[in-house]
């Protein structure tokens, strides 16, 4: 059965990073994989910048018209239809941030509804270190808004709490507590907990309630940037 993952969430929660990780993992397992860049909001640091790396892994990438061309009026390409019409093993939608970003999904409402029952996972990527996702209240509110705009029900959350290059062991743990509260309140289960392998293992060894961890998802960082010296100095300061 075709599996369709839709990644939505707060700006900066790590959707693109996770979309790349989901896609790489699927491709590595020999699955026919399509990755759709549906971010209609952001013109910087976007998935389509990684087009060459993605196509080398035999992942098909669909990008908005004019993505990475320096034009800010992106438009939805007709090829999005291939996600529904073609016979993929895994399809991943990387969607723009917040409710405004998830609006782009509404256009495909009927296509999503026609998927086989159980095929669709709509995942709210949560980074509790982002100011607007730092409490259960805010997560619940954002979740409600994104559902209204996307015309989709969120089926799970991903705890992807991180501080980019200076992520430490506290991040996943604090995220776990906040997301657990949001999950209990909204009834949306935690499906995955993601992070760098060592930090993730450290977190898992702490013996938290597995119902609010879901499947552990060790991730690789693809969205590298070249301004790491300041962060390096910050890391030294913290030690």
């Amino acid at each position: 059965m075709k599996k369709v993952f839709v990644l939505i969430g707060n700006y900066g929660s790590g959707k693109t990073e996770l979309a790349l990780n989901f896609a790489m993992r699927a491709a590595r397992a020999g699955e026919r994989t399509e990755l759709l860049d549906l971010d209609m909001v952001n013109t910087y640091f976007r998935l389509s910048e990684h087009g060459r790396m993605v196509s080398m892994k035999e992942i098909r990438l669909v990008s908005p018209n004019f993505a990475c061309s320096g034009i800010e009026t992106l438009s939805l390409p007709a090829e999005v239809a291939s996600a529904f019409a073609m016979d993929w093993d895994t399809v991943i939608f990387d969607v723009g941030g917040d409710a405004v970003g998830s609006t782009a999904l509404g256009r495909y409402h009927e296509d999503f509804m026609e998927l086989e029952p159980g095929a669709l996972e709509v995942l709210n990527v949560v980074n509790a270190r982002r100011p607007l996702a730092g409490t259960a209240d805010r997560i619940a509110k954002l979740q409600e808004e994104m559902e209204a705009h996307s015309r989709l029900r969120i089926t799970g959350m991903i705890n992807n709490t991180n501080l980019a290059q200076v992520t430490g062991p506290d991040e996943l743990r604090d995220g776990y507590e906040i997301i657990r509260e949001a999950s209990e309140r909204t009834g949306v289960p935690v499906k995955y907990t993601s992070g760098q392998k060592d930090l993730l293992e450290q977190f898992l060894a702490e013996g938290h309630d597995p119902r609010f961890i879901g499947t552990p998802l060790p991730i690789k960082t693809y969205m590298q940037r070249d301004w790491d010296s300041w962060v390096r100095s910050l890391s030294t300061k913290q030690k």
Partner: protein
Amino acid sequence: MALTLMKGSEAIAEAAIRAGARFFFGYPITPQTEIPEYMSARMPEIGGCYLQAESEVAAINMVYGAAGTGARVITSSSSPGVSLKQEGISYCAGARLPAVILNVMRGGPGLGSIQASQGDYFQGVKGGGNGDYHLITYAPSSIQEAINIMMFAYDKAEKYRVPVLFLADGIMAQMMEPVEMPEMVEFHVDPEKKPWAATGWKPGDDPEKRAQINSLFISTEELSKHNDVLQATYREIEKNEVMYEEYRAEDAEILITAFGTVARVAKSAIDELRAEGLKVGLFRPITVWPYPYKELRAAADREGVKALLDVECNEGQMLEDVKLAIEGTKPVDFFGHCGSQMPTTQEIIEKIHAMKEGK
């Protein structure tokens, strides 16, 4: 204090609010639209005013009006929008109004591109609008530094009664970094401390105490006197407010000069070059007006320094100030791109190698 992961735009906007800004006037333009977006959500929460003006020209004139009451006011835009604001900025400077103006630079000239650039250095530090004026101009190179500067920017603006300009770029507004956000500052307009502010005058009040916000001086004597005051203020700022950073510069043979995001790239390049055994360091102006002429000269005068390399994401605008600082005492080379292409670590490394080989 806990770190949070923030986008440059959000962080700069939140820092302005924490520093006491309660009025935002602006107009959307990529790559800084997240600033008005954030302000539109945040200002009502704290009893402030967010107003999307009908144009950049209107926005800067709203800044003039609100700043005239002594309030802490902010506007933001990107290059073409900041060009539109120049008349109002000159009026603010003329009327001695403290305010904060953000320029998230993108490619130019004209509409240019929506990608990051440093092409508005001249506009920011050499004038922009008409008349003899300066803006205290900060060029932060990390989001944390932008936050930290914002926390005292209004104090400086009010101390000297000058507008403050932030020269950021698209990368800084769009990238995310872990930051520490300082506590909210208590700020109220104190008419005792700001006797110049137009806070309300009723018929019958002392006419001598009527505040007037004005940049028009019909008599040449009066205008001349007014300009003397402005110039004396600028000399004072030059004396007190210069900020800069040196990075691995103490024993450098080649001294790189760079500001803002490009200085970040330069630091990465310097670390790699140092690992190869090459003595390369950085001099980074944090205030680009007042420019650290004396301090750069002192750094370049060190015996070991053989040459300077200025790196910018433009065709060599700060280069002129570097040369003014050096006064021909050492060779100054340049590397940069215009057209919004950020110089990369690798390019800087290659350029330094070429300089070493005497190319």
